[in-house]
């Protein structure tokens, strides 16, 4: 088992290497002089040259890359081109917010979607099933930013409520923290719930069609045992796949939701970085998010092999 995890970790190295190359080089093919965009058109040639030198932009591009990667390996993500601040501390403090938001949203979506999907699957073609299918189809058709906007509008119009401004860390004041994060997490969670519900329902349906379910019924199992011990456990494998994929969607969704709810998370950092052409920040944050995403997928894969005895660790 440990050998398997270790091997999977080793397999991530080329992927992450590829990710870093892609991010770094795409951000370098931007037309125009980065230094000029930062300093503005009326900057002196000396100032431009100095800035280029400060950020190593005068070096050959592969050397720039090696320098950056060397730094990243030792935990130095470089400094912001705008503020000159070190990037990594900023990333990690903001990641705490994004991570909390992602996990809360995932949790909300699971507690909504998995039971609904199971009920709909079991009571196939019933009114309940029909209702769940309509709602989940609407769920996958409403983009999270639209849901957020409409929700804010409805709360403002009918309840005179507006989402709190500012952010308080969980460890400073858990209650205020959860109050702040609740609405954004609800939006992200419900907008993801549609897809998970659909997947859960179709997985349950597919499993219930299999031969072994009939065998278990023929053994005299109560419906409860058939569903919860056998059908659900088997359905967990495809459900887990969709959950893993959805975490990526959630991480991406945080970029939008953090913007709408003014949360100082990692997504917002990327967005400001892009808008201010602060590429050291963008490349650092995107690399970090990709790393987290890849790690989450690894965890999903490990859970997979834990759930399914047919998967060997070799």
């Amino acid at each position, binding site marked *: 088992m440990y050998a398997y995890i270790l091997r999977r970790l080793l397999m991530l190295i080329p992927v992450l290497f590829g990710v870093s190359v892609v991010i770094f080089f795409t951000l370098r093919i931007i037309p125009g002089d980065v230094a000029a965009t930062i300093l503005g058109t009326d900057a002196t040639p000396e100032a431009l040259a100095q800035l280029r030198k400060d950020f190593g932009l005068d070096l050959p591009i592969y050397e720039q890359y090696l320098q950056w990667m060397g730094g990243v390996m030792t935990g130095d993500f470089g400094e912001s081109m705008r503020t000159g601040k070190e990037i990594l501390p900023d990333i990690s403090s903001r990641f705490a917010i994004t991570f909390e938001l992602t996990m809360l949203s995932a949790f909300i979506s699971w507690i909504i979607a998995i039971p609904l999907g199971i009920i709909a699957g079991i009571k196939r073609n019933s009114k309940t099933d029909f209702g769940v299918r309509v709602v989940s189809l609407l769920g996958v058709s409403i983009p999270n930013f639209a849901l957020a906007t409409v929700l804010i509008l409805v709360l403002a119009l009918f309840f005179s409520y507006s989402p709190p401004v500012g952010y308080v860390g969980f460890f400073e004041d858990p209650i205020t923290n959860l109050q702040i994060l609740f609405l954004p997490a609800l939006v992200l969670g419900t907008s993801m719930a549609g897809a998970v519900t659909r997947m859960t329902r179709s997985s349950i349906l597919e499993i219930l069609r299999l031969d*072994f379910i*009939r065998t278990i019924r023929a053994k005299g199992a109560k419906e409860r045992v058939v569903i919860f011990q056998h059908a659900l456990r088997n359905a967990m494998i495809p459900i887990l796949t969709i959950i893993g994929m959805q975490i990526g969607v959630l991480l991406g969704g945080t970029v939008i939701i953090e913007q709408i709810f003014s949360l100082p998370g990692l997504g917002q950092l990327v967005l400001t970085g892009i808008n201010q052409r602060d590429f050291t920040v963008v490349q650092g944050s995107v690399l970090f998010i990709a790393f987290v995403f890849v790690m989450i997928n690894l965890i999903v894969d490990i859970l997979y092999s834990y759930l399914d005895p047919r998967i060997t660790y070799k």
Partner: protein
Amino acid sequence: MAKNLTAILKGRGTLNTVLDIKNLSIEVNTKKSKYNVVEGVNLSIGKKMKYGIVGESGSGKSLTSLAIMNLLPDVLKVSKGSITLNTEKSKELTKLSKREMQKIRGNEISMIFQEPMTALDPLYTIEHQLLEVLKFHTNYSKKEMRELGLDMLNKVGISRGKEIFKSYPHQLSGGMRQRVIIAMALICQPKLLIADEPTTALDVTIQAQILDLMNDLSETHDTSILMITHDLGVILETCERVAVLYAGQVMEETTVEQLFTNPSHPYTQGLLKSIRSLGDHKNTLYSIPGNVPTPAQYENMGCRFSSRCPHAMEICKSKEPSMYTVEKDHTSKCWLHEEEGVAYG
């Protein structure tokens, strides 16, 4: 006098039989269509008897067995008739509640399905899946269950029981899995074991072993067997009585001996001819010409075999024949028996 008594008892069908199916019809009921896929089936399975149902795919043989277990798919339901199980008390299976039926499945009636490769839950160990049956139906302690389970595995010819207990289905061969499934089916000592093509998916060499095993075990456990198969060879090897099913109806019902020596229904004759031609190198392989009608065509077609029957007469295409008693213990559903002096064979 004694003969009279048995006749009376048989008429009641409670003492000598384990299962009585009377006039059973199964109906497909969807928004688009509604018709019978099984119609007017009568069967009586005696105690310790090995009873066979033979028929092509689509004849309704598997549906009949699923109807006994009350495991028909959602779109199908028993529309007419009764299925009576006679154990300590007589129970009308079509009228039982879900709960009551669950107590019977795996306990009083067990079922073995065709595909051993997919019949077990891939995520649980053999131990879990075997002992599960005991958990559903008995109050034994964990230890007693384990002992019973190992003993049962031993009986089905698995000696390394403790090792097999820890394995998952994908680690076993098809023959091993079918043995495990038989163990599961017999562990509660059911009165009736339904085997739906239990050997079709297995290697030829293993088929005979599995059939022998079922035969032996049913004798030691006093279990009746209902063997569902498309293969007359399996019937010959294992059964005492047999019903020939065609297009959802019983065409002929008799002892296995009489079926092979004196087949009365043209369909049965065709089936026998096709297996006999197998061993005969001089002739080309015989097969019954034409196709099985689909359930939608059943209505108004007279005898359902008439479209393929070499002896078909005018009446066959317009009017359905009834069951005729050809000889003692032998019935056949064919207009030919209406007239005298028809040569069989």
